[in-house]
Each structure stands twice: as structure tokens, then as C-alpha cells.
């Protein structure tokens, strides 16, 4: 997911070859895939690089809130599952960084952009995971929202991104189901456990809806992104779908969605729901999320404190190469 246009580069009027541009637009309109060595407009390359790298950063930073609970998982079964889930997210980050690199930005540049605070990642990961139920809520809601966003991206126009999304989508379903199962079990437990599940839903519901990004009327790049097939549905369309499938899942385990305005609208065949606090969303985008600073510190510390591993591997590779040359 996480394709919420968190960062907009100013439109540059690139002088493109009109013939190549027309051929490109026609290919994309015909649902053809664009591959790394193909000609593409600079704005397409730039938008995709930003979108894919933001997506990659989100997978990587997304390991932190859950990693927080690996050592405290309530059973060995839960611990093994959570470990596998977090490892999957690392894999998602790697698939996506590789896809972004094919557009000409190096891995190092992307990592540096993340660590310097220049690059954005999904706002959802700047909220804290204070109880075990949060791990259930994240799997169910956050991975659920991610699936909603990622499924249409399997048909995105850029081949390496589409292929990465196919792999990611295959793995996400387990993430969502293990989260829902955690919530289900808590709801079948003591009243205190059930209260914990409800509390987690209360805190994660709105931030999950924000994951789909600003409302369509404040999402000026949407039309272009839809035309270029780097987005296949609008933010509001995806958000509506998410609400429609998630509300019954909450009801089925006796949880109530924390939105007094929520009600079924027969005529549109979907739920009407309350106004999202966009002030909060934009504040988190600006880096004012409750644990934004901790997240970035954890990332930078991991990178810097483990530099010796990378250096040792480099030294070993150089030594072996030298020996081979001498032989």
C-alpha cells in the first residue's frame, strides 16, 4: 500500500519528444507493461520512483511497531507467527527497493533519503503499539488496508512494480488472517481481554482509514496516476471498499467501530462514515506522529550500529577476490 502521495515534487515541464510520449501513452492505455529499459517520460519515472521507494520504506519502518512485540508474544506459536510476518515485511521492502532501483536511483540513495528524513513512509507506522491487541489490530486493519491498496497494483503499468506486488499480495493474506485471529481469540477471552481488543480497534480504526491518503478532491495527481496506470483506483474508492468489508468483520466478533456516524446506506450499497481528522493526518505526514522520532532513531541506529557487518563482508569479499587473482 502506502501509496498516499505523501510527498509531491513540483511539476517540471520536461521537454519530451512528443512522438515518443504519444507512443508511451498509447502503450499504457492499452494495458501494456513498461519495462526498465523502455523509454518513459521523466515525470513517470520520478513519480514511480517516489511511490515505490515510499512503499519500500513503509515496509521497512513497518517492521518496528510489530518487532516491538516479538520478545513479548504471549505464546511460542504467536511468537513464531509474528517473527515470520515481520520477516515477510523485510522481504517486501527488498522486492520494492529492487523495483525502484530499476528506475535509476540506488539503494544507498533511497536509504539515505529515509534516514535523513527527506523521504516519507506511511503515516500509520508513527503510532505506538502499546498492548498485544495492537498486533492483532495491525494485522487485521493495517495489512487489510495494505491488501486493498496492493491488489490493484498487481496490474500497474510498470513491470517490476507489478511483479513485486504479485509476490507481496501472495504473502499478505496470512498477515491479515493472523491479526484477525488474534482479535477473535481476545474477544472470546475474559472481559479484560475483550476490552483490550476494543481499545486497539478504537485507536487503529481512524489511522487505518488515513492510510488510503487524502480525499480525492485534495489529491491532484490522481488523474495523471490513473491515466498512467500507476494507481488503479482512487483513494476514496479504496477507502470505501475497506470500510464496507471491515465493518462486518468487526461486528462478527462483537467489536464496535468507533464511529457514531457509521451506518449502512442502502441506496449506495455501502456504509456512510464520519469525517476523518485530516489535520491529524497532515500533522503525522509532517513528522509529528506520536512515535515518529523513535522510529527514525531505531532505523538510523540499526543502520549505523551494524555498519561493521557490512564492512566485514566487504573486506572478506575483497580478500577473496585478491586471492583468486593471485592464484
Amino acid at each position: 500500500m502506502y501509496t498516499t502521495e505523501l510527498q509531491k515534487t513540483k511539476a517540471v515541464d520536461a521537454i519530451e519528444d512528443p512522438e515518443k510520449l504519444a507512443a508511451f501513452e498509447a502503450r499504457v492505455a492499452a494495458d501494456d507493461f513498461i519495462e526498465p529499459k523502455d523509454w518513459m517520460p521523466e515525470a513517470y519515472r520520478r513519480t514511480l520512483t517516489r511511490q515505490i521507494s515510499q512503499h519500500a520504506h513503509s515496509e521497512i519502518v513497518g517492521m518496528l511497531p510489530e518487532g516491538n512485540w516479538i520478545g513479548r508474544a504471549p505464546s511460542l506459536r504467536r511468537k513464531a507467527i509474528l517473527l515470520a510476518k515481520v520477516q515477510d515485511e523485510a522481504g517486501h521492502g527488498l522486492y520494492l527497493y529492487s523495483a525502484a532501483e530499476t528506475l535509476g536511483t540506488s539503494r544507498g540513495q533511497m536509504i539515505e533519503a529515509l534516514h535523513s528524513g527527506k523521504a516519507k513512509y506511511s503515516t500509520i507506522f508513527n503510532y505506538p503499539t502499546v498492548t498485544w491487541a495492537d498486533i492483532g489490530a495491525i494485522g487485521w486493519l493495517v495489512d487489510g488496508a495494505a491488501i486493498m491498496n496492493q491488489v490493484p497494483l498487481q496490474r500497474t503499468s510498470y513491470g517490476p512494480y507489478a511483479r513485486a506486488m504479485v509476490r507481496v499480495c501472495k504473502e499478505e493474506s496470512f498477515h491479515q488472517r493472523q491479526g484477525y485471529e488474534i482479535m477473535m481469540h481476545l474477544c472470546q477471552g475474559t472481559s479484560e481481554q475483550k476490552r483490550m481488543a476494543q481499545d486497539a480497534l478504537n485507536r487503529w480504526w481512524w489511522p487505518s482509514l488515513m492510510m488510503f491518503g487524502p480525499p480525492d478532491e485534495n489529491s491532484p495527481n490522481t488523474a495523471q496516476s490513473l491515466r498512467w496506470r500507476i494507481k488503479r483506483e482512487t483513494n476514496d474508492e479504496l477507502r470505501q471498499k475497506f470500510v464496507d468489508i471491515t465493518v462486518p468483520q468487526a461486528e462478527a466478533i462483537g467489536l464496535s467501530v468507533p464511529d457514531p456516524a457509521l451506518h449502512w446506506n442502502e441506496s449506495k450499497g455501502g456504509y456512510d462514515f464520519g469525517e476523518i481528522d485530516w489535520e491529524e493526518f497532515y500533522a503525522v505526514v509532517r513528522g509529528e506522529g506520536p512515535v515518529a522520532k523513535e522510529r527514525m532513531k531505531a532505523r538510523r541506529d540499526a543502520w549505523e550500529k551494524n555498519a561493521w557487518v557490512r564492512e566485514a563482508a566487504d573486506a572478506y569479499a575483497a580478500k577473496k577476490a585478491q586471492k583468486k587473482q593471485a592464484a
Partner: protein
Amino acid sequence: MSKDWPLWEVFVRSRGGLSHRHVGSVHAPDAEIAVRHARDTYTRRMEGISLWVVPSAAIVASDPADDAAMFDPAADKVYRHPTFYNIPDHIKHI
């Protein structure tokens, strides 16, 4: 900024009897670590029984700009396909 490790393309044979297929790439300082990273990144769910890693720099690709010249000649050589030949229906096993 530290330099990226070299890039390796990863190929997986999903089961006996099938070819290795390209699945993605990894960065690694040497071939041995490339294989380990490839295993962790691309075969966490029994996706394969064999891995190849190839330095990306060693791959030579055709140029998409030359697609027409490269592949079009095949289109006017329809006689390379069995359906080009008209054989009466009553002739069997051919």
C-alpha cells in the same frame, strides 16, 4: 554515503523438470552471500528447490528501441508454422 553492494539477479527452479526462472535481485558483496540473501528473500515458502545468482552486470540485454528490427522478421515467415500448410481433411495423422 557507502557504496551499494553489487547487484545479483536471482533465478529459482520451482520444482524438478522446470527451468530456472528470474524472480528478482539482491545486493551482496560476493556470490556466497548472494545465494544466502536470495534464499531468505525469494524462497521463504518452498518456492524453489534450486537457486542461481548471476552478477547483474554480466547480463547483456537487447535494446527495446531495436525491438522492431530484432523480432519483426519472424512475422513475415509464417511458413515456419505448421498452420501455414493446407492439408486436406481426409489425410490423417499429420
